[in-house]
C-alpha cells in the first residue's frame, strides 16, 4: 500500500493533516527521519510559521537535502501553505535563508497598499485556470471534481509568484489574483489548508491519495 510521509519538522499543525488523510483511508507516517521519507511513496510538507525558521529546522534535521533528492527522484509531493512556499527559492519573508528551489519564482508579501487586511484569513474562492500549455491536457488531478468558485480556508501573509505561469492550476483573488494551487510534474502545492477546508478540502486530499 502506498504510504504517505507527513514531514514533522516542528512547524505546527501536523496532526490535522494526518487525521484528514487517515480518515480518507490513507496509510501515513509522521516523521522527521530522512530514511522514512526515502521509504515512503508520497510526501506531504505542511507548515505554518516563518520561512527562515522552517528552513533552519529542515536543515537541522537533515531533511532539506533529503527532500530535494526525493522530489528530484519524482516522488509525489504536496506542499501545504508554508510547505508550498518552501518549494520556491526566494521569499520576501526570509532574511537570509533560501527555500528548496524546486519551483522557479518568489514568495511575496501581500501589499497593504492594495487596501486589504493582512493576514489573508478565512474562506476564499478558487478560480480554476484553464488551457495551461506545458502540462498534459486536462485539469490538475488535485482539483478533479472541485467546482470553480469553491471556498477553501486560507491563513497567510505571503503568497507564491511562480515565474512560469503554466504551473498555476487555480488562483484566488485577494487584492489581485495569486497562485492558490501549483503543479509541476510530481510536485503539487496549495496555499490554502485542505485539511481545514471541510468537504472541499477532503476531496482535494482524496485526489492526492489517488494520484
Amino acid at each position: 500500500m502506498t504510504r504517505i510521509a507527513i514531514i514533522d519538522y516542528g512547524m505546527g499543525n501536523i496532526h490535522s493533516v494526518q487525521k484528514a488523510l487517515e480518515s480518507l483511508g490513507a496509510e501515513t507516517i509522521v516523521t522527521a527521519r530522512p530514511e522514512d521519507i526515502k521509504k515512503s511513496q508520497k510526501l506531504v510538507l505542511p507548515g505554518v510559521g516563518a520561512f527562515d525558521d522552517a528552513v533552519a529546522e529542515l536543515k537541522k534535521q537533515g531533511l532539506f537535502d533529503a527532500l530535494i533528492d526525493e522530489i528530484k527522484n519524482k516522488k509525489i509531493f504536496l506542499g501545504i501553505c508554508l510547505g508550498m512556499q518552501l518549494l520556491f527559492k526566494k521569499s520576501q519573508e526570509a532574511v537570509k535563508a533560501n527555500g528548496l528551489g524546486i519551483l522557479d519564482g518568489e514568495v511575496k508579501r501581500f501589499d497593504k497598499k492594495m487596501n486589504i487586511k493582512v493576514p489573508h484569513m478565512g474562506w476564499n474562492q478558487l478560480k480554476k485556470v484553464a488551457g495551461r500549455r506545458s502540462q498534459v491536457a486536462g485539469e490538475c488531478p488535485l482539483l478533479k471534481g472541485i467546482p470553480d468558485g469553491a471556498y477553501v480556508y486560507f491563513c497567510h501573509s505571503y503568497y507564491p509568484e511562480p515565474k512560469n505561469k503554466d504551473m498555476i492550476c487555480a488562483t484566488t483573488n485577494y487584492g489581485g489574483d495569486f497562485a492558490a494551487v501549483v503543479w509541476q510534474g510530481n510536485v503539487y502545492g496549495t496555499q490554502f489548508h485542505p485539511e481545514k477546508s471541510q468537504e472541499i478540502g477532503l476531496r482535494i486530499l482524496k485526489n492526492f491519495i489517488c494520484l
Partner: protein
Amino acid sequence: MLAKRIIPCLDIKEGRVVKGIKFLGLRDAGSPVEVAKIYDKQGADELVFLDITASYENRKTLIDLVEDIATNIYMPFTVGGGIRDIQDIRDLLNAGADKISINTAAVKYPELINQASSKFGSQCIVVAIDAKSVQSTEYRVQSEKPRTNQWQVYINGGRTPTELEAVNWAKEAARLGAGEILLTSMDYDGTKDGYDLALTKAVSEAVNIPVIASGGAGSLEHFYQVLVNARADAALAASIFHYAEYSLKEVKEFLRDKGVAIRL
C-alpha cells in the same frame, strides 16, 4: 472573494461546555466535541473555544480536549483562556489548535505577542480585547481630547479595568504582530441588542488585521450591521446558536441574500 466569517463560540469549564446548549438530537449537551461536530456539519466557518476556568490544574484537561476536537473536525479553531506564555501556546498548537487567543497576558506582557508571532507566525496569534465604553469625564487617554466614543480595556475575564484604551491597544497589538483581533463589547455581551457597532467600526478601521466582533448578537439584522456597517471581518456568537434561535444556515442565507460575501 474573501467571505465574511460566522463563528460560534463555546465557553468551556473543566472540559465541558458551560453555557446551556439546546440542540435537537444532541445526546451529550456538555461535550464540546459533540457540539463542535454539529457546528462543523452546519457549515460554521470557524470555532472559538474559551476556557473560562483556565487554572493550572485544568491545562491538561484543556490539552486533551483540544486533541479530541482536532481529530473530529475539519475546520479551523481557536483556543483561548488563561494563556500565559510561549509554552502554553506551543502546547495548544501541538495539540491541534490553529490559533491561540491571548487576552490578559498580552496586556500584562505585550512582548508575548511579539515573541509568539515571530515564533509561530502572526496568523495563529489572536489578541482578544474585552472593552467597555467610558464616559469622557471618568476616563481619558493622556493627551487625547475627551470624546464619547472611547472604550476601556478590561482583563481577568472582565473583572479588572486597565489603563488601556481599546482602539489604541488594538493598534499596538497589531504592531506587535497579532494576526487578528477578537473584540468583545462588555456593554453588549449577552444583551441580544446587537453588536457594539461604534466600537467595532473604530477598531476595524484602525487596524490592518482582521477583526472578529463579539457580544450582542440577537437577530439576523445584527450580523448584517456588524459585518457591513461596522466593517467586521467575522462575527462571533454564542447563545443565539446554542439555543437554536437561528441556525448558522439561516444567518448565512440571510446575509447572502443581502449581498454579503458568504460561504454556503
